[in-house]
């Protein structure tokens, strides 16, 4: 049982689910971004991005998942209910990506210690064991704008020693490029087990926090490379009472977050 602390510090005793902890961890990725396009892709990422905008990062712009930027707080909005701020067909996305006015949160079938990401193919690329989506926009996103990743199924097959194909480039690839890599920022990875950043001298992945109910050993065992683990690993923060209200009643009243990351206590 996880309790929630209100902004006045009063514990309400409400059970907070793992999905809700993930939502807050995603929202925190966008803290400080200001008036840029926050572009989280996926169920919990979208809810987390909406939470950031509805609370501490009000200037963020966000998509409807398709061709407009909308002001709604709700994660998924019917076309007729959208409060449209801008027409943003796919081709407009490059204006935000290539100018750096965007922070994308992508998924990753594989991610390594430097934040290199693979969503193109598993195995030898020339004759893949498993063909995935393709390179999609990952090379262009990572070289041009801030990038974070969302992994709902943390395990050693996702957090790998080396990705089979580098679609999104990580800190090591950026460093090797010199000036040409100057716009690369792989900010954070949020998984169903914890939060990871690259705040190490050589930008290798560090365990920044574990979600309540998860041990450091569990995270290490579920990670296929040597994670940097500080002596004291904090717990990921819980939503405030106000944030919990926003998540449950305003942003995701249908509870879609719980299907993406089932609560261990459920």
């Amino acid at each position, binding site marked *: 049982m996880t309790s929630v602390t209100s902004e006045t510090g009063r514990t309400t005793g409400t059970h907070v689910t793992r999905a809700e902890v993930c939502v807050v961890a995603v929202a925190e990725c966008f803290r400080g971004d200001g008036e840029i396009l926050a572009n989280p892709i996926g169920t919990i990422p979208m809810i987390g991005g909406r939470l950031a905008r509805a609370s501490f990062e009000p200037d963020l712009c966000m998509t409807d998942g398709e061709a407009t930027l909308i002001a709604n707080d709700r994660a998924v909005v019917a076309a007729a209910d959208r409060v449209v701020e801008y027409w943003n067909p796919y081709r407009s996305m490059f204006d935000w990506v290539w100018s750096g006015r965007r922070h994308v949160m992508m998924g990753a079938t594989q991610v390594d210690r430097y934040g290199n990401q693979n969503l193109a193919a598993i195995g030898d690329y020339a004759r893949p064991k498993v063909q995935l989506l*393709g390179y999609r926009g990952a*090379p*262009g996103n990572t070289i041009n704008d801030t990038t974070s990743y969302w992994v709902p199924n943390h395990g050693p097959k996702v957090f790998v020693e080396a990705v089979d194909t580098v679609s999104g480039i990580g800190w090591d690839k950026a460093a090797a490029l010199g000036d040409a890599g100057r716009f690369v920022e792989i900010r954070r990875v949020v998984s169903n087990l914890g939060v990871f950043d690259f705040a190490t001298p050589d930008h290798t992945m560090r365990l920044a926090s574990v979600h309540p109910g998860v041990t450091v050993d569990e995270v290490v065992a579920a990670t296929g490379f040597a994670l940097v683990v500080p002596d004291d690993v904090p717990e990921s923060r819980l939503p405030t009472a106000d944030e919990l209200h926003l998540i449950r009643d305003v942003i995701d009243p249908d509870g879609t977050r719980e299907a993406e990351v089932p609560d261990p206590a459920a």
Partner: protein
Amino acid sequence: MAPELAGEILWRDVTREDPMADKTMTEEDVVGRLRSGMTVAIGGWASRRKPMSIVRAIVRSDLDDLTIVTHGGPDLGLLCAAGKVRRAVYAFVSLDTIPLEPHFRAARQSGAIEDEPLDEGLFHLGLQAAAWRVPFLPTRVGLGSDLLRDNPRLTTFTSPVPGPGGGEPEQLVAMPAIELDAAICHLNVADRRGNALFLGPDLYWDDLMLQAAPTGGRFLSAEKVVDTPDLAGHGTLHQMRISRMMVDGVVEAPGGAHFTLCDPEYPRDEVVQKAYATSASSPEAWAEFRANWVDIPEDEYRRKVREAAA
């Protein structure tokens, strides 16, 4: 001599007895203009507004050895399943509600097709370069990634222009023009000369594909073909993004994007899409889908869609 009224000129232009001005044709006529070995761009995006009636006509034809340039969906998958594809040029392939395209995956995993992967932005620049008749456009997209390993057409070069603040010139990627032989798109409303409107939220890359393709190889199907004076009334000025200067053939194809979605006319037919996706499970399942939904005349296809919806 007094200048003619603009309106009179317009009216005379579009109503004159001139067979060259009428570009309407059938799906089979489009196929007849294509040749095996061609590089063909297909409009739409994933499982959205794909020119499926023309794609099916290609599947039924003798054409093969095609290079398909697409923001891929069931267009590429169907052509892969039918053995029409030599090479795929794409950034992603998806059915939207079914994230991974099973027929495309099967073709990749069995080594049946050559693969030319791109980033979505490189795809855009390659078409733009072709449309503008320049050999490449510069970008930093691709640097550091395995795209430079997996797509040997991508090369890097040192900028001829000094870097920021007069510093060292930077390394860039040259995205080569994607040279097309043909482009095929599906729009909402067109006239007989090839002017057309999109009525959904996104034009995708349709206009750019039509601009990148050479004269003689630019085709569109449309839900509806109307007289030119009636065209503007079907949408807004901003939706009139396809000019007859980009188009050589117009196919009237109500429901022509089915089973992909065509906003605002119809949503994706998830039942037929699921049947299509499931048919990748075995050669028998594919043969059955093909017999039911591909190897039939268009009027029968439309009748089946109507009956299924009833």
